């Protein structure tokens, strides 16, 4: 087995994790190069080659696989560098992307602009056609008019086209025909048909998926080709895979064909890693927090499954657009090491959502930041060693942090600098806790039955505090927590997600219709496993159905144990599974009531790695570091022993108060908590008695 690389391009750092021939892991961090992200990827690989004392080309030649998490798609959208895209819509409905689904946040805040449509109205064209709810053709496609419109778009220099017609999910004939006409009139111009990219109801969601996808095709195609070429030029001959929003990986060239799946490439891997490292039983429920410099991302593993959502927003909820695609449910809030603390005119403390970001960053970084942040508070409390930050690669300015905290927070609140620092950590923790509760209540998860898995560079600062506040069973910090997503990418499955809409009721179940749909999905999965998954170790299909009670508006995702309905008992089993899931998520169910199904999902997963999480290379440095004075939440300054994470032996127990430090993160073990290293290298923290 050759080297396997996982490269996750983040906002500040490009994390590389390498799995060696023997299966041991190493982490390398290079700076992200936003103008040319592939350079950051190559830089990180060069760092690893240097550590292996090999020329880059020789080192890369040993590689068999490279998995890439990229923010390139979302960045292209945020910076407006996507293709000039046209939107073809059903006549009479030109404003689907303008009206969206309504909704608003902060009812009294009128300082925020209504979002512009994803495709401007000037490039939105109404096509004479209409399909009805039952699939019948209400107005036939006017091909002459369509041809005229396509010629017009050609003259206007359109670079991509999204086509979304009402009810194309029931009868795609018009979308298909328009696709043929596009190929005829605008050969080579990338286009996306809604029934193919996102066959689900709700025209806005389908239209937005379609238009995002089309608009990304040119830029992501070029990016993937460039990545592939430059890796080859540097000497890599293995397979290049990309992380999808669904928490799987795809061949880079396939991903470029459906780039809407790359919006959440990266964050979707956190729960995959957490599941592999921290889940002991298949039924464990995990809350996964990934704390970076500016954001805190929460995701879940719910009884062994990673929940999906169709409501992934490109920016703030209601103030931007959603992708409409089923994706790993990740909630992101503006809370991280860089969150700024301040006191308002009425004397109230605030932490975030404004952030000092990577530049200038916290005051203690000494890069010109003047407003105190969570990282500055952590430094003052002794959570971070100013001499040993990032393994000693950077020295922090404690004095600057103290002065800023005093001026901006401690003095206005009439408290000591240390008390102010503690207050900042406590409030930042509460914001994270609230973000976790929002996502857990949506999924019907009781945090007290879950394990909190902490990832990201700033994870260790308050993971015990979060775990205690939520009364979680325990807290797990993985050995490679600082690069949680990359560690998930190394063990993730090659996967593809197929869906089809089929509406039927459990009290008048169209078994033949459903079985036909399931067979079609199954065939597509098989075809994927025979092509992309040809060399996989094994493969399996995860089936699920999105269903609801008859009068309900929103569906829930119910796992299916079968891929074919043979008799009435199978239908009953689906009903039963639905009631159980509804009860689980919402604490109510209506067991006598029939249900209706809307969307059917098949996810093919082809295993391309052992699936066993690897271990970091053994560290020969000593266990004990010099002790230091640390003020824990609710304590005075205590002389606290400090241990090197990597050097703690398996099974060894460390009682709080203690600090555990790695080259990438510090973990605060509060008084009363105990940490133990398990056989996967995780730090498993028992929270002790929580009052």
């Amino acid at each position, binding site marked *: 087995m050759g080297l396997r690389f996982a490269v996750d391009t983040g906002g500040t750092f490009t994390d590389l994790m390498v799995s060696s021939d023997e299966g041991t892991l190493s982490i390398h961090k290079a700076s992200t190069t936003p103008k040319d992200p592939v350079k950051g990827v190559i830089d990180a690989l060069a760092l690893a080659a240097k550590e292996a004392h090999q020329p880059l080309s020789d080192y890369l030649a040993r590689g068999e696989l490279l998995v890439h998490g990229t923010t390139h798609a979302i960045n292209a959208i945020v910076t407006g560098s996507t293709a000039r895209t046209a939107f073809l819509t059903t006549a*009479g*409905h030109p*404003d689907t992307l303008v*009206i*969206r*689904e*309504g*909704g*608003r946040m*902060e*009812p*009294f*805040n*009128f*300082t*925020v*602009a*209504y979002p512009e449509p994803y495709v*401007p*109205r000037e490039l939105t064209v109404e096509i004479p056609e209409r399909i*009805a*709810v039952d699939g019948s053709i*209400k107005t036939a496609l006017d091909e002459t008019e369509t041809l005229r419109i396509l010629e017009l778009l050609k003259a206007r220099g359109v670079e991509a086209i999204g086509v979304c017609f*009402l009810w194309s999910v029931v009868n795609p004939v018009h979308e298909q025909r328009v696709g043929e006409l596009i190929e005829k009139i605008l050969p080579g111009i990338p286009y996306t048909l809604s029934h193919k990219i996102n066959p689900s*109801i*709700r*025209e*806005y*969601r389908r239209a937005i998926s379609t238009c995002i996808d089309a608009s990304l095709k040119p830029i992501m195609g070029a990016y993937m080709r460039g990545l592939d070429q430059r890796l080859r030029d540097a000497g890599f001959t293995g397979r290049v895979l990309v992380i999808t929003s669904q928490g799987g990986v795809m061949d880079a060239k396939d991903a470029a064909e459906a780039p809407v799946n790359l919006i959440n490439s990266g964050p979707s891997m956190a729960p995959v890693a957490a599941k592999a490292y921290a889940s002991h039983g298949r039924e464990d429920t995990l809350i996964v927090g990934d704390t970076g410099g500016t954001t805190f991302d929460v995701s879940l593993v719910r009884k062994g499954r990673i929940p999906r959502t169709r409501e992934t927003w490109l920016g703030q909820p209601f103030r931007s657009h959603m992708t409409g695609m089923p994706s790993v449910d990740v909630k992101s809030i503006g809370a991280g090491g860089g969150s700024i603390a301040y*006191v*308002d*005119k*009425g*004397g*109230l*403390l*605030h932490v975030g959502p404004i952030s000092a970001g990577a530049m200038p960053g916290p005051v203690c970084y000494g890069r010109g930041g003047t407003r105190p942040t969570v990282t500055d508070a952590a430094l003052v409390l002794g959570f971070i060693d100013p001499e040993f930050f990032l393994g000693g690669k950077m020295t922090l300015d404690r004095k600057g942090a103290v002065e800023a905290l005093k001026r901006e927070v401690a003095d206005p*609140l*009439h408290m000591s600098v240390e008390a102010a620092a503690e*207050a900042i950590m*406590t*409030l930042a923790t*509460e914001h994270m806790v*609230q973000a976790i*509760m*929002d996502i857990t*209540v*949506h999924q019907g998860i009781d945090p007290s039955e879950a394990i909190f898995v902490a990832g990201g560079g700033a994870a260790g600062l308050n993971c015990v505090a979060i775990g205690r506040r939520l009364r979680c069973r325990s807290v797990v910090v993985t050995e490679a927590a600082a690069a949680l997503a990359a560690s998930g990418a190394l063990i993730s499955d090659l996967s593809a997600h197929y869906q089809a809409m089929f*509406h039927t009721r459990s009290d008048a179940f169209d078994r033949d219709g459903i079985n036909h749909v399931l067979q079609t999905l199954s065939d597509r999965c098989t075809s994927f496993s025979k092509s992309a998954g040809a060399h996989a170790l094994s493969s399996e299909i995860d089936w699920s159905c999105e269903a609801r*009670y008859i*009068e*309900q*508006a*929103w569906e829930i995702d119910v796992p299916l144990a079968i891929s074919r309905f043979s008799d009435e008992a199978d239908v009953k089993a689906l009903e039963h599974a639905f009631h159980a899931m509804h009860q689980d*998520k*919402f*604490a*109510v169910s*209506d067991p006598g009531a029939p249900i209706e199904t809307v969307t059917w999902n098949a996810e093919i997963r082809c295993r391309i790695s052992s699936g066993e999480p690897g271990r970091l290379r053994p560290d020969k440095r000593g266990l004990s570091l010099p002790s230091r004075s640390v003020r824990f939440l609710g304590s005075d300054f205590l002389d606290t022993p400090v241990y090197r994470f990597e050097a703690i032996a398996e099974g060894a127990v460390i009682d709080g108060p203690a600090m555990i430090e790695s080259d990438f993160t510090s973990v605060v073990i509060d008084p009363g908590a105990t940490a133990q290293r398990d056989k996967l290298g995780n730090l498993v923290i028992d929270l002790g008695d929580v*009052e």
Partner: protein
Amino acid sequence: MTIRDVMDGSTLALLNARMEGIARKMANTLHRTGRSGILTIARDFSCVILTAKHELLATAESLPIHVLRGPDIMARTMAENHKVLRRGDAYLHNSPYHGCTHPADHSILVPVIDDDGIHRFTVLAKAHQADCGNALPTTYMGAAKDVYAEGALIFPAVKIQHDNEHVMDIIRMCQMRIRVPEQWWGDYLATLGAARVGEREMLALGREVGWDRLESYTGQWFDYSERRMIDVIRAMPKGRVTRKSTHDPFPATPDEGVTITATVEVKPDEALIEVDMTDNPDNMENGLNLSEACALSAPMLAIFNSIDHTVPKNEGSFRRIRIHLRDGCIVGRPRHPTSCSAATTNIADRVANPVQAALAELADGLGQAETGALLPPSCGVVSGVHHGKPFVNEVYLGCTGGAGSPTQDGWLTILHAGNAGMCYQDSIEVDELRHPIFVHQRRLIPDSDGAGRFRGALGAYSEFAPVGCDIIVAYISDGNINPAQGTRGGLAGGCSAQYRKKRDGSLEPLPPCAEILIKADERMVSISAGGGGYGSPQERDVERVIRDVREGWVSRARAREVYGVVLSEALELDHAATQQLRLGQASLPKSRL
């Protein structure tokens, strides 16, 4: 007496995050478990926490007209009518004579009783029903002469759970009166569930933090909120402005409609804003009368729309606002049996709008223009019988109308002033799947903006028809005659309208307040109102005007005539002509349309 525990700004922030988190958890629960489209699609509900003294404490992201005032009166009614409140109790409340907005807003109140039997807080979940048992299949009975003609059952804080068990007599009464009993039952369970979630979380918080400490927190949180409000008002200019806004003529109104007069007075020296609503007509024999809750909330939401949005909305900041009402007034305290069926929308908006526009007149940077009026057929209540089964629900097929504000164009999907855009808009496909209707068109209407430096949102056109049956569309569309006015030189938005589109394609104008039978071969046409503009259109950033024209929102002719921006056919800016036009028009006296 315990010594008052003085909390610092960090403890307050922390406990506030906990309280808001509980209200949000209630709302999330209600949204995901409700049965009817109006709750789960449109999100027409609110969840709040009140103190034991019935003071509003936390509202999460509720609908402004639902919650600013009213929940306090409802909680007081519960406590006065039931001298002993016990854990396990829940109360159903929809009485507009006792603090509820209007009878369609079924509310569940649960007193939070500590382990010693002391009433500590009240949690309230309020949800608009698809049907509340009115005489006609609509929850907005604009023409109802009185509460008897309305027909809904009225519950002035009636016990609906005892020891956590349903009082089945009440449930059965509702099921006998409400048109879609299963749907109501599902929504009731969701609303009750939300209140119970709030109760459970509050009990846990009280046990963790201590009840006395929580009480101390609420007092200090109110003080903080009041301080923020004082700072804001002290920075405002002193002044008194009277503005009027006229509701279109409806059944039982004077022929010229109902003119609402609001006098707003800002007193920076006293850190007080007063709104006088007493100079208004008496209650009318129709469903437009405001409940006390709406009469108080409408001017207040307009004030909060007009100032720094970070001031918390609770009993503390409310201390700096005085709303003057009188008994028996259309904007006041209604006397039973006055009907308040449509209290949350029509006249309420005619109260909120002049208040925020008056504040704008006091100083640039304050206030807002007027928001488009409600309730056109596109958000009417659609009912009928399809394949032998009755159906009734409110649809949201394009209602827009946001007002221009000091820094932004109107928020497109605002719906109406009291809603603040919190409700969702329907998916055409979901509506066609759920109801026997076919939506021919839904589009925005060019040139229907109230022009301004920041313009109002466009109105929306929608056209829908029944499939395989007849349907009744009930609506109460204000703004046919009286558009949303602009402020500070901004112009009025487009008017609303409604038509029957006959088989031959001809349009038959329909009355503004009606229940209309649309036959299988006919279509309902609905036009919603545009929002008013803020500031003179001549001051609008030229780039914004060009973008509006390019996008088709504003015609080239209108850009020239109203905005003073001259564009070629290729939409290139004629600098010289624009400058000349704008200078010339600026010298003319500005007319307030």
